[in-house]
């Protein structure tokens, strides 16, 4: 007996969801090198290529450094180009990261967030992407498998916009999302294709009628102004992202924002967090609300450009703000903490600011752990910087 499905949703893990988005977009070129927990994305996409379901040219490379070099040049030649990596792979690409962005080519890269060695560790934290945060890439975060898919479709629209022209990192938490099966609502392929549209490179090298050179040497006269142009592009990306989110809501029914908020409006204390922990913290917030605590949680969906105005507005009038960092700049703070503090300074009254470092190297952070964070702040046990769950 065949049971008809009750809906058209999929049972799919995060990596396969990204690969499905790529298949629907059908980019011109893909080059990548396998690394856990990203591997499934490129394996699945290679299957689509082998089965003739996409027309993408896949280029085998011997390293991540070569992968990103190839992607950068292929995109500057005029091809829509995607790649994916994690952890050491992103570290190995690092030399190329600021070159890709300064060449203003909108390469799309999925990052299956994983701790950076050492000690060697394959589990999730945000050490990889945070080490890339100063490299001029647009940076998006996802809370669950659905969002990893959605962000993969949204990314090229922001990155390729004529006012932006910057590469984009699409983050999904390693294992927690990449290897977890969740229920996901896909979008019809024709609708995805229409939404993402044709790639229109601005100054492609292969346009022989309009010959150009890319990535020339800049003396002091041009280097700084060129960096400033990237600042302007990032500023433009805030508006472009908002517009693209609106358009995406029309095709999907799912609405995204520069900063996602949960129960923040009347909250006295709010936490700011990235990635899958946003979901787990919503549960912590609900449980604390039942105990009478006025708390909320927010996630910067867009981490680069940093949505400083939206964050400032969010923090207005709050008693305390807790920044949850899944990475640590050893000897200082978590990387998001000073950035949230800078946003808080936009307001006349600055809340009490706390930094919690959590979940490094895959340390599983439970709902009760997140609840203890709010309670530690309320009861005066928290200090400026705290290391959740580590014996001190």
């Amino acid at each position, binding site marked *: *007996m*065949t*049971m008809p*499905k*009750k*809906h058209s*949703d*999929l*049972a799919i*893990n995060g990596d396969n969801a990204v690969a499905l988005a790529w298949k629907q977009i059908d980019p011109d070129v893909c080059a990548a090198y396998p690394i856990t927990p990203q591997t499934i994305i490129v394996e699945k996409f290679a299957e689509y290529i082998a089965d003739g379901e996409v027309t993408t040219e896949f280029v085998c490379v011997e390293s991540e450094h070569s992968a990103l070099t190839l992607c950068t040049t292929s995109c500057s030649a005029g091809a829509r180009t995607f790649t994916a990596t994690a952890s050491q792979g992103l570290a190995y690409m690092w030399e190329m990261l600021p070159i890709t962005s300064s060449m203003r080519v909108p390469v799309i890269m999925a990052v299956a967030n994983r701790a950076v060695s050492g000690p060697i560790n*394959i*589990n*999730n934290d945000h050490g990889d992407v945070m080490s890339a945060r100063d490299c001029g890439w647009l940076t998006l975060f996802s809370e*669950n498998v659905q969002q990893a898919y959605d962000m993969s479709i949204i990314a090229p629209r922001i990155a390729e916009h004529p006012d932006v022209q910057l590469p984009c990192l699409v983050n999904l*938490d390693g*294992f*927690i*999302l990449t*290897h*977890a*099966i*969740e*229920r996901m609502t896909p979008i019809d392929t024709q609708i995805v294709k229409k939404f993402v549209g044709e790639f229109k490179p601005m100054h492609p090298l292969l346009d022989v009628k309009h010959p150009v050179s890319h990535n020339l040497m800049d003396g002091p006269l041009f280097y700084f102004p060129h960096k400033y142009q990237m600042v302007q592009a990032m500023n433009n990306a805030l508006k472009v992202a908002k517009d693209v989110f609106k358009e995406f809501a029309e095709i999907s029914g799912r609405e995204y924002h520069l900063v996602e908020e949960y129960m923040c409006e009347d909250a006295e204390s709010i936490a700011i967090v990235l990635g*899958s*922990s946003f*979901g*787990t913290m*919503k*549960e912590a917030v609900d449980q604390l609300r039942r105990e009478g605590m006025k708390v909320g949680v927010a996630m910067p969906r867009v981490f680069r450009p940093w949505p400083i105005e939206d964050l400032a507005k969010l923090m207005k009038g709050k008693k305390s703000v807790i920044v949850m960092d899944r990475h640590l700049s050893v000897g200082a703070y978590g990387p998001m903490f000073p950035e949230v503090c800078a946003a808080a300074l936009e307001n006349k009254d600055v809340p009490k600011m706390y930094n919690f470092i959590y979940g490094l190297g*895959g340390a*599983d*952070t*439970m*709902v009760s752990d997140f609840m203890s964070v709010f309670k530690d702040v309320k009861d005066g046990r928290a200090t400026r910087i705290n290391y959740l769950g580590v014996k001190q």
Partner: protein
Amino acid sequence: MDTEICWHGRGGQGVVTANEILAETAIYAGKYVKAFPEFGPERMGAPIRAFARISEEPIRVHTQVYEPDIVIVIDPSLIGKVDVAKGLKKGGFILANYPGTPEELQKAIGTTAKCYAVDATKISTEEIGRPMANTSMLGALVKVRPIISYGELEDHITTKFTGKLSDKMIVKNLSALKRAYEEVQ
């Protein structure tokens, strides 16, 4: 209310696949699921766990399962070595691949919690030709707690493995599923 499940087995015994089949079947039946293996390097023969959270509502919690409603033990050799009853919710139960009675299983685990036993090693050896207990455990599970229906499970296993396993092997797995459904006590 979520149903939280924790699987215990060894690398290579199909724990991850069984969890996947359960998750996919539940999703296609209209439920929400978060299902994943214990994160880390997998080694053949080493004890591993897998987790599933199944709900009528969208799932927001992404952590491992610490207080399962259901514990499923695929490998009887883990009993007495791994604390499989750890964290089991009040009113929860343990379903194990075990050749004895539920009372003997309770004693072997050292628990007063409700236990169900099914000799999945024997069933799979006789039906499939090798001791691959994972599909049998799914058959036993839907008998003692019909989170998904037997029919939905049978249908999804057929769909999932068509083209990947021979028709003969699919039929053998379905026989194991059915026998475990009937024989679990």
